[in-house]
C-alpha cells in the first residue's frame, strides 16, 4: 500500500530537483514514443525544444498563445484557492468575445483607438455576467458551480454560432459564419512590427503583477494564503462565504471575458465560429502548473505556449501526427504535475506486515 503524507515545508532543492526530473521523464517518454513511431527521436526532440525560441516569429507565437492562458488562469486561481471551482472559463471567454463584438458594432465599428477600452471592458462585463449565473445558483440554491459553469460553456458555444450565423453575419463573407472585420483602429497594435506580439500582452503582464503584489505584499493576500491552508476553506479571510463565491466567480469570469475581447481585437480581428480554441480549459492546467500563484501562472502559461509552438513545429518538420504531438505536449504537463506531488507529499510504503489486523470474530 502507498500512502501520501503531506510535507510541512517543501524544500527549494527538492522543488528544483523534481522540476528537472519532470523534464527528463518527459524527454525519455518522448524519445520512446517518437522512436516507436519511426522518427529519429533526438532530432524530433531538438526541434521541439529549440524551435519555439528560434526566431522572433516563434517567440511571438509562443507569447500570443500564452497570453490568454495566463490571463484566464490568473482569475481561476483566485477561486481555486478558496475551493470555488469555476471550470467554465471557456464559456466566459466566448461571452467576452461576443460582448466585445457587440460593443464594436454598437459603436458603429469606429475608426478611433479610443473605443478599444470600451470593447475590452464590454468583454470583461460579458464574462462576469456569464460567471454570475453559477454564482447566483450556488449562493441561492447551493447548486455546484462546477457543473453549472461547465454546462454554460455549451450554451455559450451555441450562442456564438447563433450570433455569427444569424445576427452578425458579414453579408460579404460568402455564407461563411463570421462577422465583419474590426476597423483597423480597433485592432490592438503589434508591439514589434511584423510580429503578432500585441499590446494586449501588456494588459496580461500588468494584471499578473497586480495580483502578485496583492497576494504576496498585502495583508489581504496574506490572509487569503492562510485561508487556503485551512482544510476546505470556503472563504477568504475577512469575507463571508457568499462574498467569497461572488468575488471568485466574477473575477475569474471577468478576466476570461477580457481575454476573449483581447483575442477578438488582437488576433482574430473578427468573430467567427472557430473562436473556441479551448483556452478556457487549458487555462485550468496552467493554473495548477503555476500552483495557483500569479508568478507561477505566468511561467506555466509560457511553458504551455512553448509546447504549442514546439508541437506544431514537429508536425511540420517531421510530419509527426498531430495526436502524437498532443500526447507529447500533454506528457510534459502530466510529469510536471506528477512530480509536483512528490514535492508536496512524502510517499510512504505501508507493507502488509505492518497493517494491524482486526481479529476475526
Amino acid at each position, binding site marked *: 500500500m502507498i500512502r501520501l503524507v503531506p510535507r510541512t515545508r517543501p524544500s527549494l532543492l527538492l522543488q528544483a530537483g523534481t522540476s528537472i526530473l519532470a523534464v527528463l521523464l518527459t524527454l525519455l517518454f518522448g524519445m520512446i514514443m517518437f*522512436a516507436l513511431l519511426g522518427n*529519429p*527521436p*533526438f*532530432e524530433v526532440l*531538438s526541434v521541439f525544444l529549440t524551435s519555439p525560441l528560434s*526566431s522572433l*516569429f516563434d517567440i511571438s*507565437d509562443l507569447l*500570443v498563445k500564452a497570453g490568454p492562458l495566463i490571463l484566464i488562469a490568473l482569475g481561476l486561481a483566485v477561486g481555486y484557492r478558496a475551493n470555488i471551482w469555476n471550470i467554465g472559463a471557456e464559456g466566459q471567454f466566448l461571452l467576452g468575445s461576443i460582448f466585445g463584438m457587440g460593443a464594436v458594432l454598437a459603436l458603429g465599428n469606429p475608426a478611433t483607438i479610443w473605443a478599444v477600452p470600451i470593447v475590452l471592458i464590454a468583454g470583461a462585463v460579458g464574462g462576469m455576467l456569464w460567471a454570475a449565473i453559477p454564482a447566483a445558483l450556488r449562493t441561492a440554491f447551493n447548486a455546484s458551480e462546477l457543473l453549472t459553469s461547465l454546462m454554460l460553456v455549451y450554451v455559450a458555444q451555441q450562442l456564438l*454560432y*447563433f450570433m455569427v*450565423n*444569424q445576427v452578425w453575419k458579414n453579408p460579404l463573407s*460568402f*455564407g*461563411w*459564419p463570421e462577422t465583419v472585420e474590426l476597423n483597423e483602429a480597433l485592432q490592438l497594435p503589434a508591439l514589434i512590427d511584423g510580429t503578432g506580439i500585441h499590446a494586449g500582452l501588456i494588459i496580461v503582464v500588468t494584471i499578473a503583477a497586480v495580483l502578485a503584489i496583492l497576494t504576496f505584499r498585502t495583508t489581504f493576500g496574506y490572509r487569503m494564503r492562510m485561508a487556503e491552508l485551512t482544510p476546505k476553506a470556503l472563504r477568504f479571510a475577512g469575507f463571508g462565504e457568499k462574498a467569497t463565491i461572488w468575488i471568485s466567480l466574477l473575477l475569474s469570469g471577468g478576466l476570461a471575458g477580457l481575454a476573449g475581447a483581447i483575442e477578438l481585437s488582437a*488576433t*482574430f480581428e473578427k468573430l*467567427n*465560429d*472557430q*473562436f473556441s*480554441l479551448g483556452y478556457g480549459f487549458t487555462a485550468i492546467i496552467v493554473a495548477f502548473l503555476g500552483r495557483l500563484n500569479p508568478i507561477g501562472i505566468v511561467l506555466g502559461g509560457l511553458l504551455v505556449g512553448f509546447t504549442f*509552438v514546439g508541437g*506544431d*513545429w514537429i*508536425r*511540420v*518538420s517531421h*510530419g509527426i*501526427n*498531430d495526436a502524437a504531438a498532443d500526447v507529447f505536449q500533454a506528457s510534459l504537463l502530466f510529469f510536471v504535475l506528477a512530480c509536483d506531488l512528490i514535492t508536496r507529499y512524502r510517499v510512504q510504503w505501508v507493507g502488509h506486515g505492518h497493517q494491524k489486523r482486526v481479529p476475526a470474530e
Partner: protein
Amino acid sequence: MKGLKAVLASAAAAVSLTAFGPASAQDDPFRVGYIYVGPISDHGWSYQHDQGRLAVEAHFGDQVETQYVENVAEGPDTARVLRQLASSGVDMIFATSFGFGDSVIDMAEQFPDVYFEHATGYQRADNVATYSGRFYEGRTILGNIAGQLTETNQIGYIASFPIPEVVRGINAFAIELRRVNPNAEVDVVWVNTWYNPSLEAEAATALIDQGADIIVQHTDSPAALQVAEERGVYAFGQSSDMIAFAPDAQLTAIVDDWSQYYIDRVQAAMDGTWASTDTWDDIDAGMVFMADYTNMPDNVAQDAEALEHAIVAGQRHPFQGPIYAQDGSEIVAEGQVLDDQSLLTMDYFVEGVTGSMPN
C-alpha cells in the same frame, strides 16, 4: 541486460547520427507542402488531397519532396502552420480548405517567393491561385438516384457550413430530385464542422429517426455511411469512394481526383510558368468522377449513367430552368441556365429543401 545494451547501442547510434547531421540531400528537390483541415484518415476530403500528393511524389520522384500537416484548424492557427512551412523552405503550398483563405492571403504577402494554392477559395493574389471541382454535377446524379429510390420521400442531408459551395450542392441535388420525384423533400441538418465523425453520425441517426431513407452528406468522414449501413438505409459517399465502409448502403460516391491538377501545377511552378489562375474543373475534365453505381436496380443505374453522359456532353446543366425558390417564385426561367457568377455566390435554397440556413 541484453535489452538494455540494445537500447544503449541504438541511443548511441542516434547520437552519432545527429552529431554528423543527416546525409546531404541531392541537389535541392522542389519542396511542396500540403495542409489539410482533417486527418488523412478521414477517408474523404483530406484523404483524396493526400492521394493527389502521393501522385505528385510518384510522378516526380527525386525531383520533388512533399510533406503534409493534417488537422489544421481554420483560424489563427492556420497562419502559424503556413508560416512554419514557408519559413522551413517549402517552395509551394496547397491549402485545402475554404476557411484557410484569409491566412493564405496574409502569408502569401509575407512570403512572396512561395507559390500558394487555395482549394475552394475565391481570394487570389500574385502568388495565390485557387482551384476546385464542379462537384455539383455529381450532386445532380445523386438527386436522380435518390428521387427514384426513396420510399418515404424524405432525404436527409448533412451539411457543414452555409457557404455557396455547400448550398450549391444541396440545390443541385434538390432540383434533380424534384424533377424525378415531385413529392420528395430534402431535410438539411447543419453540423458546423467539416470533420467530426461523432457529430456526423449523430446527425445521420437523427435524420433516419425522423423518417429519412437516404442520407446525403457534405462532410468529410464515412461516419454517416456507417450509420446508414447499420440502419439499413441508403447513402452516398463523399469526396472518396467509401464503399468499403458501407458495402450495402453506398449507392455511389462523388470522388474528387486532384492528381492531375497537382502534377500540372507543380510542373508549372518548377518550369517558372506558374500563374495565379482560377480553376474550376468538372467531370469531363476528370477532376470529379462517380464511383460505381451499386445497390440499386439496373434501370436506376442506367438512368444515372445516361445523366452522367448528358452532363459530360453538355446536354444537361445541373442548374437549367425552370428553377423555383423555396417560396415557389421562379428563379430561372425555362431554357435558361445559371451562370458561374450566380453559382459562386449562391445563398438561397430552391424548392424542395425544407429548413433554413443554420442557426
